[in-house]
């Protein structure tokens, strides 16, 4: 099929501790939290005060500069605390959950026959707009924009990531309705990418342009797919929505309720109960994995792009996976000797791990070296399957050279596309952070 996307460059990291494909309902968390820092560049304005009663779908806060973008409660209960960080920045909005959710009624609607303005307003009103992400910049979309296309990547290639087909297996109807709703938001097409293996239940989706994607990570990154299907030029907007969030939007239109379902795969070599848990967005991580020792890193997300959590903190808004791996705070004697320490995976060939492409590795969080100046060339290009020069782009971002960043393709990248650069680069530089800062600079300078 001509719509296939075949990715050649990249690197699939095979790790121990994949989640077993059993879906169970997670024990109801006593508290949930929405974390405004999950929505990059959004400045939250609280609507409710501590102690207020909320239903699922009730507005908690809105975006200061795009007032129509509302963030609503995933569960019903009582707003317990608004946790603030430095400069009184709101870090967490914590809700003590009722034992049983009650929902705010939005009313059912068929997005295919409804007016596109109504569809948009319904998504905005219910808080589902938080699911809509904008490229370039990787931020929450501005409802005033008109995107040239919407991309949904219903697959995963990141290490130990959740199987999207498995997550959506019992929500295919909602997923289809959600896709229908998205067609009303764009003047262009809605693109759905699925893993190429034949016979996937997601292949039958209608009203979308289907792409079968194959290749190593980051083939499933939506940014890579956009680059190969319909690349973003200066001034253009493309929106992306996560696959489970599409189903959540669909359920909103089917039932009129904001059912903020989040299926979370618990994975990683340090996790004990490796299964798929179904809960609501913002669940307490300890309700999924219990309390773990200090020597285990809890990651909200996959090992390449996730955020670090402590016991008792809350899973982020978007991730479908919580990964637990051992901390690597130990010394290794003569760790630089070539062809030694072959149990640590390496894309380079300075140890022998490349000889065992099917072996699954038990990794820890050790940096395996120290930060150095950029010396080795060619290794970044090998894991960024786009027509751009990652090392030069990183250098332009470090220098803050806007014109250069623009011509080198800053509009087409998101930090997650550089996650593998973080992983492979010899100099241990933080590529994702550099790209994020570069994108932030573009937002303030270009908009």
């Amino acid at each position: 099929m001509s719509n296939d996307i075949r990715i050649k460059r990249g690197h699939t990291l095979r790790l121990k501790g994949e989640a077993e494909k059993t879906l169970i309902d997670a024990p109801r968390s006593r508290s949930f939290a929405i974390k405004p820092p999950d929505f990059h560049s959004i400045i939250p304005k609280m609507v409710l005060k501590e102690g207020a009663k909320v239903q699922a779908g009730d507005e908690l806060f809105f975006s200061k500069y795009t007032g129509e973008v509302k963030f609503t409660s995933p569960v019903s209960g009582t707003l317990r605390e608004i946790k603030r960080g430095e400069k009184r920045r709101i870090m967490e909005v914590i809700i003590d959950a009722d034992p049983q959710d009650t929902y705010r009624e939005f009313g059912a609607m068929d997005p295919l026959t409804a007016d596109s303005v109504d569809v948009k307003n319904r998504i905005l009103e219910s808080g589902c707009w938080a699911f809509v992400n904008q490229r370039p910049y990787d931020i929450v979309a501005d409802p005033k924009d008109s995107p040239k296309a919407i991309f949904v990547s219903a697959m995963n290639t990141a290490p130990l990531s959740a199987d999207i087909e498995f997550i959506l297996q019992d929500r295919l109807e909602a997923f289809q309705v959600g896709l229908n709703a998205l067609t009303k938001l764009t003047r262009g097409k809605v693109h759905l990418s699925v893993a190429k293996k034949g016979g996937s239940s997601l292949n039958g989706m209608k009203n979308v342009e289907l792409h079968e994607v194959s290749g190593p990570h980051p083939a499933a990154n939506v940014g890579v797919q956009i680059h190969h299907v319909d690349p973003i030029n200066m001034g253009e907007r493309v929106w992306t929505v996560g696959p489970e969030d599409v189903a959540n939007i669909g359920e909103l239109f089917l039932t009129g309720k904001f059912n903020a379902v989040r299926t979370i795969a618990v994975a990683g070599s340090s996790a004990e109960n490796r299964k798929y848990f179904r809960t609501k967005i913002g669940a307490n991580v300890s309700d999924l994995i219990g309390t773990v020792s200090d020597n285990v890193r809890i990651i909200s997300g996959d090992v390449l792009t996730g955020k670090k959590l402590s016991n008792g903190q809350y899973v982020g808004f978007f991730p479908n996976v919580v990964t637990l791996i051992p901390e690597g705070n130990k010394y290794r004697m003569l760790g630089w000797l070539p062809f030694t320490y072959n149990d640590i995976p390496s894309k380079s060939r300075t140890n022998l791990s490349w000889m065992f492409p099917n072996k699954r590795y038990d990794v820890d969080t050790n940096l395996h070296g120290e930060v150095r100046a950029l010396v080795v060339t060619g290794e970044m290009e090998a894991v960024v399957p786009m027509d751009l020069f990652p090392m030069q782009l990183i250098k332009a971002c470090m220098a803050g050279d806007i014109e250069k960043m623009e011509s080198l393709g800053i509009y087409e990248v998101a930090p997650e596309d550089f996650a593998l650069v973080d992983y492979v680069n010899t100099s241990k530089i933080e590529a994702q952070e550099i790209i994020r800062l570069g994108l932030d600079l573009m937002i303030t300078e270009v908009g």
Partner: protein
Amino acid sequence: MEWIRTKLDKLREPFNQGKKYEKFAPAINAFDTLLFTPNHTTSKGAHVRDAVDLKRVMITVVLALIPVLLFSMWNIGYQYLSQIQAEVGFWEAFGHGALKLMPMVAVSYIVGLSIEFAFAIYRGHEINEGYLVTGLLIPMIMPIDIPLWMVAVSVVFAVLIGKEAFGGTGMNILNPALTARAFAFFAYPTFMSGNTVWVSNAAEVDGVSGETILGTLAAGEQVQYSTMDMFLGVIPGSASETSAALILLGALLLIFTKVGSWRIMLSSVIGASVMGLIFNALPSMGLEGNELTNFPWYEHLLVGGLAFGIVYMATDPVSGAQTTRGKWVYGFLIGFFSVMIRVFNPAYPEGVMLAILLMNVFAPTIDHYVIQGSIKRRNKRKSPEGINPQVNTAV
């Protein structure tokens, strides 16, 4: 191992943050991290990292140099002893060479690393491993009889002017090892060229024919060495440049570990072959060549510093071209110009040093044009509906 770690932790106590010798931490860190890869964990970005680090990469290059270094010790001794006596024992030759070469390596490392340490402490950054390779390369590309103080002065020039002036490892424009050699070459030409510097103690012994093959050719004389001698490296030359066979072994290690760019090596060989073939073809075009132009193209690849330069210095990722296509052009031109300079330069019948330095200077230009290609492709795909008006006003 535990007790070494405990000892080290105790030893470095006064260097820790907020302690008396905090400023000198990079110095102690250099030794500490050489013994133990530190316990640092990821704090942002990807939570897991590849096993490779700069130490591993640099040590791999050093590893690729060791066979060449050991062979050259024997060859230095052999070249000298075989001219004054009939029978040459292996250990006798090796011992002579080792006694000549090891002091040069020691001087290079001591002088260079002292400057690196001083700069790391002064600038407050960790010591980069790049000098592990540079410091070994410098003595390996010098004539064996060069006085140690000249090695020291060349190292000082290379590290200070060639590297630190540009901001240290990763920022230099020229390959530091070749900068050292070029400095010595132009500052002390009598020690760096001619026909008495290539065999150890040649000037002191009567009747030694110590010319390099290229020198012989430039003088218009016949070469007495066989192609096999050239390949194995039993010929006079700069300390460690002679053995094409062992350099090939090192190249294979660098290519196998992906530490050295096979693209640069291959394209350099192609470039040198093309230039050699052009010169070889002169007689058939009715032009009379000279000894150098008629020297077979494949022997051009074996003699002089070409193989050594291509494998260990042209592939330096910092001073070379950084883009994939750029590497092909960069490598090709290095090989091409090396042979061209060899043949045309009347003063000095070797070209690889100058060719690499020249292409070092042009590498950013080559990369610029490669990147422009990508930028042009990007600019070409204009959106059919024009630019978002919102963005237009913001600009």
